[in-house]
């Protein structure tokens, strides 16, 4: 019990050092500590549970195999490092799907088009639960029209509410690229909306 408590009190860097030393339980502890973070990030890009689980597995496996490149004390926190790996895995998966044309979206249904128009007029929905479920499907359809880079930039800036510099650090892009990508992504998304309204 005391040992477990001590392990919980260890910092991420100490746990990484323990994994280096061959303590596999330290990695399990890192997983327990950060699995929600990775799941939340994966859930921003993928909605099917199988896909999200796949991203979680891939991200933690990549992190484990790349632990030797983690220089937490001098570079960044484990959370930032793991987030970057997860974002990269998500981005690669989005690109792979784009190449394989798996996410070819069907046109919006009449109900979805009505819903969009209604939301644009800012009318209040009476059945919130139903509206929510329609909105999820609709959002997925709309976002699948965006390029992976655009989607990544929008998600990090608009939803995660990161700064441009943080987004640049997380994606490995330059600041100017993030700005340019975000501008294009917004224009692209608005173009998608306009097409259906």
């Amino acid at each position, binding site marked *: 019990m005391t040992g477990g408590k001590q392990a919980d009190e260890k910092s991420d860097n100490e746990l990484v050092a323990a994994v280096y030393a061959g303590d596999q339980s330290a990695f399990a502890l890192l997983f327990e500590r950060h699995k929600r973070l990775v799941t939340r990030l994966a*859930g921003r890009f993928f909605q099917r549970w199988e896909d999200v689980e796949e991203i979680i*597995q891939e991200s933690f*496996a990549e992190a484990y195999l790349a632990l030797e490149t983690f220089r937490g004390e001098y570079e960044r926190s484990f959370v930032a490092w793991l987030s970057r790996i997860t974002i990269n895995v998500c981005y690669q998966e989005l690109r792979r799907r784009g190449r394989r044309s798996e996410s070819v979206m069907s046109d919006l249904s009449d109900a979805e088009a009505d819903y969009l128009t209604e939301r644009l007029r800012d009318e209040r929905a009476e059945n919130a639960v139903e509206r929510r479920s329609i909105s999820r499907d609709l*959002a997925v359809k709309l976002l699948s029209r965006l390029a992976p880079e655009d989607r990544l930039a929008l998600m990090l800036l608009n939803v995660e509410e990161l700064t441009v510099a943080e987004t640049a650090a997380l994606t490995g892009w330059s600041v100017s690229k993030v700005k340019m990508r975000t501008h294009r992504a917004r224009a692209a*998304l608005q173009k998608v909306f306009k097409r259906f309204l």
Partner: protein
Amino acid sequence: MKKFNRRHRRGASEDLERLSREALNAAALNEAEIDEIAGASDLYERIQKRIVAKRTAQRVARADRWGAAWLDSSLLPELLGLRRQPRLVFAVAFVMLLLFVIVMPRWLRTTPDAPQKAVILAPPSLTQTSVIGAGRTDQIVDAKPDKQTGLSGRSKRAVRRRAQATGEIATDFIPLTWVTEATAMDSGQVVRVKVPRAMLLSIGAATNTAGAGEFLLADVVVSDDGLVRAIRLVNR
């Protein structure tokens, strides 16, 4: 009117921006879903299996890469780091060129003499002598010896140099057997022996019968098959 249009456009743009944000938020999983997915009991086991699989794949890929690289000689310089160090390449090339320039003339000098058409057995004469070495035996190590005597040019020169140092006088080597391509020797030894003076008759040299019982010093070339191929007479 213009102002109205501008305000209308700005309003529409803000609405689209808001809608974009909503769509992005709506597409994301909610907290309950995140908890449920992250709380899957076998998730960590699957990650461990994934790690093992990826590690194995990395090893196989690494082995394949090395194998392919060895087969593809164009990748060899990259593996050796030569592409990153052009100076090293030039240095190695220069050293090899230097070695070639040094070794090539020597190698050319050791090439065998032109093959003789026939063996002319002439009586040995001490007037056409050369100074021969006093070494007991000389290992003939040249790969391309003279087909008549079994001595290569290099061995002959070495023997002569040693002989000059000791002051011995000897005839040239006289072949004792008719040598063809089939019986040509590759290597052999020079052995210092004493032979009876009567033996000179057998090689066609005129001799004084009065001293037939005397012994003379001679060097014989014995090939690897045990046959004596040539002889020369030595006078100390």
